[in-house]
């Protein structure tokens, strides 16, 4: 596999393979010196056009634990502010010979475009409303770690699904592994043509909570009010939020998940997030091992290392 642009690039087998590799890298991460020489001499470039704390740090830590060199690229201090196009920036970075470019952009499809402009492997770290494959992978890994498997699990996704790249990747990953996914949101926060998605849709959280293994929350942003998608966040929370009272209906052992950042008290009540079955910090921790697995899969398997820095 050359790039990771979409969960579809992996399929069920690929996701399983990433999870198996992540088991190994979780063990590495627990060592006194959590570092292996696997990707020594490889360079991973970070091309983040959008603010990100956890994803960027997670990729950087993952690359360093594999002994890869990390090339940072910060939009605020770069020539992007001088109007340089993505294509020109990619050409510049590529001339320095990275083995992988990790891309985040607020527009859907930019990682696909970048993949056409570079000989490096491209990893999608989130593009617009489209996909965030490594988030879905670490979520699969977390569910597998806690519940044994994703197959057969009943997963409820709540919050702003329409504008969520995490939702698209997670739905693909969870259903590929054989989970049953139900989306719960007001219709204005559901994607168009949702009947073409391999999911059930329910307008009531109360109807599905008592019968699920995972309640997965997505951030509901303030600006959805001004776009007339919601009358108010208060109404959203009252009707569709995972409140303390609703969370009481969850079966014992059901997980509460969220990719972060959380709008505490909007999609999920703060008390619910602080319970032992809430996995937010585990998700972040697993993110490192899963991203190590992805980098390994894309870079270590490369049979013919490319000459580095042929251009200057």
């Amino acid at each position, binding site marked *: 596999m050359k790039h990771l642009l979409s969960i579809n690039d992996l399929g069920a087998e690929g996701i399983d393979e990433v999870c198996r590799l992540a088991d190994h890298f979780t063990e590495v991460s627990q060592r006194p010196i959590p570092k292996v020489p696997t990707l020594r001499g490889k360079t991973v470039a970070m091309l983040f056009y959008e603010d990100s704390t956890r994803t960027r740090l997670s990729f950087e830590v993952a690359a360093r634990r594999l002994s890869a060199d990390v090339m940072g690229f910060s939009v605020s201090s770069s020539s992007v502010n001088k109007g340089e*196009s*993505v*294509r020109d920036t990619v050409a510049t970075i590529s001339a320095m010979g990275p083995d992988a470019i990790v891309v985040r*952009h607020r*527009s*859907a*499809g*930019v990682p*696909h*475009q970048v993949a056409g402009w570079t000989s490096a492997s491209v990893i999608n770290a989130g*593009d*617009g*409303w*489209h*996909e965030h494959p490594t988030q879905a992978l670490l979520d699969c890994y977390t569910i597998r770690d806690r519940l044994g498997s994703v197959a057969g699990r009943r997963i409820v996704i709540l919050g702003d699904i329409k504008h969520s*790249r995490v939702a*698209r990747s997670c739905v693909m990953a969870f259903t590929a592994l054989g989970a049953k996914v139900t989306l719960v949101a007001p219709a204005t926060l559901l*994607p*168009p*043509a*949702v009947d*073409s*998605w391999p999911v059930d849709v329910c307008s009531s959280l109360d109807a599905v909570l008592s019968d699920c293994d995972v309640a997965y929350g997505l951030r509901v942003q303030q600006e959805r009010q001004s776009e007339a998608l919601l009358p108010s966040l208060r109404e959203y929370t009252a009707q569709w939020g995972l409140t303390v009272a609703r969370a009481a209906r969850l079966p014992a052992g059901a997980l509460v998940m969220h990719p972060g950042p959380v709008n505490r008290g909007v999609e999920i009540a703060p008390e619910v997030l602080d319970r032992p079955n809430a996995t937010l910090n585990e998700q972040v921790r697993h993110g490192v091992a899963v991203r190590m697995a992805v980098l390994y899969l894309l870079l270590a398997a490369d049979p013919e290392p490319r000459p580095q820095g042929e251009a200057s």
Partner: protein
Amino acid sequence: MSTVIKGGLVVDQTGERTADVVVDDGRVVGVGPDLSGDEVLDAAGCVVAPGFVDLHTHLRQPGAEEAETIETGGWAAVRGGFSAVVAMPNTNPPIDCAAVVQEVLALGGKAPCDVYTSGAITVGRRGERLAPMAEMAELGVRLFTDDGNGVQDAGLMRRAMEYAAGLGVILAQHCEIDSLAAGGHMHEGEWSSRLGIPGVPAEAEELMVMRDIALSRFTGAPVHFQHLSTGGSIAIVQAARQAGVEVTAEVATHHFTLTDEACASYDPVFKVNPPLRPPEDRDAVRQGLAAGSVDAIATDHAPHPPDAKELPFDQAPPGMLGLETALALALTELDLPIAKVVGLLSWQPAAIAGLNGVHGGPITPDSPANLCVFDPEETWTVDPGDTASRSRNTPYAGRQVRGRVRHTIVGGRAVVVDREMRP
């Protein structure tokens, strides 16, 4: 010096016949067997048709000469068999007053085809107040549109219709309700949902078609619908025509050729407004052409320089080239008799643009010599580099098509001979 087009099948609105056509001093001087002339253009196996008329061409001048000039766009037109184009007014400055109309018409003198221009309905195409349509009409402008924008305000559109009808000109509408379309970059449906690209629903177009049909019925003014792209729009127009409302419609070549699935590549070369639609809509557009509920095939030729089409999908400007591929796509994609395709490209749009008698035939002695000769069977592969346009944004790169223009004659002058341009 006379020119004879030898051995072709002459197709015009009066019918088809095998005949030689002699052109001299700007006019057709003979149609019949075994004619001769000073220069001979071979047309064996070819169709000799009236030159095509494009109701919808973005020539980009003034203001975006890096994408196209009136001259280069004109050469793309004649290479596609068009003897006349109607320039769209979304230039910079927009074509919304006599001064800019004069500039465009003057620049049109350098182009190898006849360049007509539309005028904007509203000042600056801003949809706020009427542009001086009468002073533009005095310069020969026959078609008014804010193309790129629909006129959002129904009251203003009503007044524009009343005013235009009094001038004997026609209003053409880019149908798009902004409040429904805003922020969208492709058709809203399964593909946009999957790709995470904000969508434009079909209803954004259909609602304005419905509104303008009601306004046309109300004011008695004719209206022409530009680049209709949905099955709903076609059905609404068909019903209105059956009810006697005076509306006409064009469709663009890409809307009967491509579908929204093409956007899955995230290549902005497939971004266009109105957007590519699902296969059902593409099929409805084809059926509309077959059934006669659509009057014309237009190109919506919209050049953009390469860097503009390398932006992220949601930041790239909409539009694709069309002049040099229109005939081939119509012959390849539409299962229609050749005469019908020729009508959709020549005399039918000529009538809408008020050009009858000058463009669109019929090919008879003493008629103006605006002609196109094409081989309906030649297959070829679209090469983005092989174009007269300054831009390269064709969505058909590598596509194999059938039907190719061989010669084009404008005002009696052979400007394209055996596909070679004659400056």
